C-alpha cells in the first residue's frame, strides 16, 4: 500500500471522525484557535510598533547628524553628560567654514512657550530657532507655503513655519498661511506649514513645533543657549568619514587637548534604529514565548483528546490490523486526524484575527504580516503532528488480538 493511498484513506477517516464528534472537535480546536489568534495578534502588534518607530526615526532624517551635548543612547552616568560645557553657536560657524563633506548645517535651539492665535492657545509648543538650512538637514517637509528664506533667517524677520499639531490646535477651520501668531509676547507671521510626522515621540518630531529665525529667537529669548547642530552629509559621502572630520573640527573649536575625551556627541537616526531593534526583539521574544504557551496548552488538549479517541476506537484499530493495516498505516491515520484538527484551528484562528488586525489598525497603524499566515499554518500543522504522535504511536503498537477483544 503506497503512501498516497494511506494519506487519502487517512484524510477520509479523519473527516469522518471529526464529523462524528463535532462538539468535541470544536472544543479541542478552541485551544489552537486561541493560540493562533494570540500569536498572530502579537505579530501584528509588533509590526505596528515597528512601523510607528520607523516613522518616528525618519523624522530625524537619514544621513543627518546631530551635534549635541547629550547622546541619544547613553551608556554612562548621566551626570557626565550634564556637566559638559554647552555647545555654542560658534561651533556651527566653524563647521560651516571647515567641513568639506557636508551639504547643510543648521544650528537650532528650543524652548517651550505658549503660542496664541486669537482666542486659541497652545501652552506647550516647542519654539525652535533655526536657519533656512534646517529644511535640508532634518527629516521635515513643507506641506503648504514655504520654509524660512535666507534673508528672513539672516535678518531675524518675525516669520514662522508651524508643525501639523500646531495647525490642528490653533487653526482648526482656517488656512494659517499669512496669519499672525503670538509666540511668547511677539507676533510672527506664518509663511509655511509642515507635513505631519506622527511617530512615537511627539517631542522629537516637527508636529508640535514653531520654527522662527535663529536671530529672532536669540533676541527674544536670550543668546546664551546650548545649541543643537543638524548636519546633512553630502550624498555619497561615507558617514564615518564625515563623522571623523566633524569630530576634528568640533574638538578644535572647543579647544580640547588630544588627551581629553569628546565633550559632545554626534547623534544619528541609525543609532536609534539599532537600539530600538534590539528592544523590539526582546518584546517579540517575550511576547511569542507567552503566546506560545497558549499554543502549547492547546497542543496538550489535542493530545488528550487523541488519546481518548485511540482508546475509543481500539476495536476499530483491531479490525483494521486484522485485515491488513500495517503499523505505519494506523500511525498515519491518527496523525492526519490530529493535524487536521489543528489545521482547522489554525485557519479559524486566522479568520478571527484578520478582522481583529483591521481593528488594531485603527489604534496603531499596522497590518497582519503576510508571513504570519504561513507561519501560523505551519505552526498548527507542527502542533498537530507533535501532539498527535504519542497517541498515534500507541494506536499503531496495539496488539490486534487484544484490540479485537476490546469492548
Amino acid at each position, binding site marked *: *500500500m503506497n503512501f498516497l493511498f494511506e494519506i487519502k484513506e487517512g484524510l477520509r477517516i479523519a473527516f469522518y471522525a471529526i464529523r*462524528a464528534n463535532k462538539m468535541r472537535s470544536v472544543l479541542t480546536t478552541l485551544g489552537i484557535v486561541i493560540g493562533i489568534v494570540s500569536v498572530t495578534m502579537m505579530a501584528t502588534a509588533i509590526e505596528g510598533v515597528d512601523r510607528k518607530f520607523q516613522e518616528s526615526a525618519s523624522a530625524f532624517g537619514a544621513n543627518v547628524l546631530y551635534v549635541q551635548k547629550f547622546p541619544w543612547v547613553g551608556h554612562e552616568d548621566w551626570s557626565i553628560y550634564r556637566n559638559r560645557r554647552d555647545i555654542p553657536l560658534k561651533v556651527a560657524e566653524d563647521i560651516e567654514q571647515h567641513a568639506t563633506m557636508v551639504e547643510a548645517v543648521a544650528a537650532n535651539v528650543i524652548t517651550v512657550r505658549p503660542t496664541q492665535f486669537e482666542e486659541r492657545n497652545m501652552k506647550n509648543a516647542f519654539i525652535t530657532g533655526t536657519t533656512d538650512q534646517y529644511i535640508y538637514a532634518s527629516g521635515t517637509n513643507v506641506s503648504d507655503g514655504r520654509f524660512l528664506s535666507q534673508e528672513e533667517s539672516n535678518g531675524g524677520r518675525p516669520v514662522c513655519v508651524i508643525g501639523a499639531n500646531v495647525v490642528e490646535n490653533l487653526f482648526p477651520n482656517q488656512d494659517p498661511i499669512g496669519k499672525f501668531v503670538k509666540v511668547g509676547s511677539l507676533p510672527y507671521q506664518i509663511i509655511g506649514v509642515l507635513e505631519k510626522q506622527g511617530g512615537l515621540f511627539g517631542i522629537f518630531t516637527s508636529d508640535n513645533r514653531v520654527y522662527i529665525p535663529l536671530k529672532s529667537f536669540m533676541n527674544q529669548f536670550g543668546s546664551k543657549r546650548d545649541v543643537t547642530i543638524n548636519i546633512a552629509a553630502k550624498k555619497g559621502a561615507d558617514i564615518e568619514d564625515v563623522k571623523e572630520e566633524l569630530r576634528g573640527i568640533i574638538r578644535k573649536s572647543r579647544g580640547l587637548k588630544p588627551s581629553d575625551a569628546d565633550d559632545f556627541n554626534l547623534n544619528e537616526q541609525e543609532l536609534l534604529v539599532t537600539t530600538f531593534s534590539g528592544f523590539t526583539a526582546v518584546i517579540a521574544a517575550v511576547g511569542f514565548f507567552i503566546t506560545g504557551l497558549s499554543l502549547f496548552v492547546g497542543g496538550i488538549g489535542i493530545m488528550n483528546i487523541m488519546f481518548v479517541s485511540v482508546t475509543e476506537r481500539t476495536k*476499530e484499530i483491531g*479490525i483494521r490490523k*486484522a485485515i*491488513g493495516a*500495517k503499523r505505519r498505516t494506523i500511525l498515519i491515520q491518527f496523525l492526519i486526524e490530529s493535524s487536521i484538527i489543528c489545521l482547522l484551528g489554525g485557519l479559524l484562528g486566522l479568520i478571527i484575527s484578520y478582522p481583529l488586525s483591521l481593528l488594531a489598525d485603527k489604534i496603531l497603524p499596522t497590518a497582519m504580516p503576510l508571513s504570519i499566515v504561513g507561519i501560523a499554518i505551519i505552526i498548527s500543522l507542527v502542533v498537530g503532528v507533535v501532539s498527535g504522535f504519542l497517541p498515534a504511536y500507541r494506536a499503531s503498537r496495539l496488539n490486534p488480538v487484544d484490540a479485537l477483544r476490546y469492548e
Partner: protein
Amino acid sequence: MEIIKLQQIKKYYDMGGAEEVHALRGVDVNIGQNEYVAIMGPSGSGKSTLMNIIGCLDTPTTGLYEFNKVNVSDMNDDQLAKIRNKEIGFVFQTFNLLARSNALHNVELPLIYAGINKSERRKLAMQALEQVGLADRVMHKPNELSGGQRQRVAIARALVTSPSIILADEPTGNLDTKTGDEIMVLFEEIHKKGNTIILVTHEEYIAEHAKRIIRLRDGLVEIDEHVKRRKIMNGE
C-alpha cells in the same frame, strides 16, 4: 498441497511473576488445499490461541509454522499484516465491521490496504457482495443490516482478496439457528468453489458441516478425524 503446516507449536502466556499459562503445549497440524476443517474444544482448550496463530494475529512461543511453505513463526508485525491482508480472510463471531462505513467500504477495506486502485477495488467488492447475495444492500451501514446480512458482509470482506484460507471464528455464534444455517450454506458454496475453510466452533452441530474435525484439549490435539456423516447444507 499443504497450506498450513504446524509443528510442535507451543504458546505460553506470562501472567506475571513465575506464573505461566501453557495455552498450547505442542500442536502438530497440517491442513491442505480445499480442506474444510473444524477446530473444536471446550473453553480453555487453546482453540482461540490456535486460531490466532493460524490467522497470523499472534506468533507461537516455540515451534514451526509454515504458511504456503513460508516460515511465518518469526515474522514481525508488518510482515504478518501483509500475510493477513493477502492470504487470510477472517470471519468473526461479532462480525467486526466498521460501524460508520457502509457495506461496500467495509468490503473494500482490505483492498485499500492491498493498494488496489479505486475502480478495481469497487469492481471486486461488488462481485464479492453479489456472491453473498447482498448486491442490493451495498450502501447500507452495519446498523441498517440484520445480523445475517452483517455476517454476509464480513464473509464478502473475507473473500474479496481471494485468500488462501477462510478463517471463521464461531461465525454463527451471534445468529439464530435459521440465519446460522443460511450462513453455513454460504460456506458450503464457498468451499465447493475450491476455497480452504477453517472453522473454529464449540458446537458439534456446526462442526459437522466440515469434512474434518480437530479436537483440542488442554493445549494438545486430542482427536483429528474425518467426519463420517457430514451434514451437507444446500439452499433448500
